[in-house]
């Protein structure tokens, strides 16, 4: 894959992002820029603050009691932590897929996909059906569920549920999609399906993915950041990070000597 084809337009930028749980600082001074329509992986040992950092990017971290965030996150040049910005609007533009598939239990497959739009006031059935189909297709789930859109979302298998959650996140059409270890609870076949669809959605969205799986990061991402103890040790083209890392710590980690 030639890297030059990426537009250089920066869509999301973290400026000195720091995050705390009570007195414990989990994320320390992260600075990084994400280009439009790229997949960006964040790797690092457990407890290195990568999930927390990701959760700062759509202001979900602050929902946990006793936490705080410093620094700026610029979405298309505007700081999402600005006091004048409505947090609900931020999250409409930065979607998120979680580690554990979490479809809404009492809702059908169809309702799960369109709930975001419906609760935003879009109730026209034809529009909702259109969005549902296109998002389920993007999430590579349409063929499997098109005949049972009214069964419960929770009746699907784990891998299907996770793809349903991806479709649900895509339905509100956010330019940026955050994924927090989306395949760690899935088997290799389900994982492969999700990696495949990520290559598709990359054509329209910017993806930032936290992963424990270095092979996964190497396979799917254009850029990779390496985190240790809340600090970003290295950030760069994945092809460089995985073949020719600049930092000793990165090399130790990806070669399995550490972490």
């Amino acid at each position: 894959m030639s890297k030059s084809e990426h537009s250089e337009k920066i869509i999301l930028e973290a400026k000195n992002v720091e995050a705390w749980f009570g007195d414990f600082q989990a994320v320390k001074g992260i600075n990084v820029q994400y280009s439009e329509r790229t997949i960006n992986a964040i790797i690092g040992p457990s407890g290195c603050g990568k999930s927390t950092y990701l959760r700062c990017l759509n202001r979900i971290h602050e929902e946990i009691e006793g936490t705080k965030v410093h620094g700026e996150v610029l979405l298309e040049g505007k700081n999402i932590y600005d006091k004048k910005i409505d947090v609900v609007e931020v999250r409409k533009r930065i979607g998120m897929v979680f580690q554990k598939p979490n479809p809404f239990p009492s809702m059908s497959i169809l309702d799960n996909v369109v709930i975001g739009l419906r609760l935003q006031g879009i109730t026209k059935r034809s529009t909702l059906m259109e969005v549902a189909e296109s998002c389920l297709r993007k999430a590579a789930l349409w063929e499997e569920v098109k005949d049972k859109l009214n069964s419960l979302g929770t009746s699907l298998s784990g891998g299907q549920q996770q793809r349903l959650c991806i479709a649900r996140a895509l339905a509100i059409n956010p330019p940026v999609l955050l994924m927090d270890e989306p395949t760690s609870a899935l088997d290799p076949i389900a994982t492969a399906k999700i990696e495949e669809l990520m290559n598709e959605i990359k054509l329209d969205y910017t993806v930032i993915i936290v992963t424990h799986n270095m092979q996964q990061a190497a396979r799917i991402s254009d850029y990779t950041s390496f985190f240790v103890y809340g600090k970003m040790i290295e950030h760069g083209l994945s092809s460089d990070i995985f073949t020719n890392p600049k930092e000793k710590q990165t090399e130790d980690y990806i070669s399995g000597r550490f972490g």
Partner: protein
Amino acid sequence: MNYRIIRKIKNALFKFVIVLSAFMVLIPLFLIIQFVFVQGMGSLNLSFFTEIPKPVGEIGGGMKHAILGTIYTVLLGALMAVPIGITCGVYLSEFRKSKLSKTLRLTVDLMSGIPSIVIGIFAYLMVVVPLKSFSALAGGVALAIIMLPIIIKTSEEILKLVPDHIREAGLALGLPRWKIIFFIILKGSVSNLLTGIILAISRAAGETAPLLFTAFGNMYMNFNMKEPMATLPVQIYTYAISPFKDWQRQAWAGAFILMVLILAMNIFARYVLTKIKDKKGF
């Protein structure tokens, strides 16, 4: 060898004691049900359901007015208690650690311990005195106060069971918190909440003390909430302490119907609704 025998005897003794105490709990329950059943069934007839009381001294008549009156006052109470109770439950489960939550939680615990006769006096002072009349409304208020702590407690517990990642999924979709609460969390917990509500209603339906000087009771059909209204428990109480054989007979029938009503609600809430819940919801 000797030690083992002693151990076995101790074991048998202990088992005997716990089985005995289990039976001691079951026996009164069965005796009550059996007693009311036998006495009540013998006293039941069609006119019990279709007629209102006859003038004193005449044989016959029924408790239609009290059966409907109980349903009326209990629903009136539920109408007040359910919205407030569920909203408080939502508050307690969504804002678990706020100061107000802690105060509210303590208040609710204390409320469930208030003797029901005191609640009756309270409703008397708050509603009967200002309106200058015993009324179904006052009875409803008293029953609502009885139901409130039960509804608040159960809905808090039920909503706490909704995993946090469901809330996060909603937040990540850019939904405001109140929409997540109403359209995702509450919607997914309907059958559970209904169980709590029905249990609260069945508790209130059997209460006599709070109704004695609120709904008060009467001997005719009434659907005006500003007037006194007959209810099964009060009617049973009035008839049971009366000197008339026929009224005492009807008190048994009333007790039987009240018990069947409450048991049916309990069984419905505990078994039927929980079956539905297993298939759907959290």
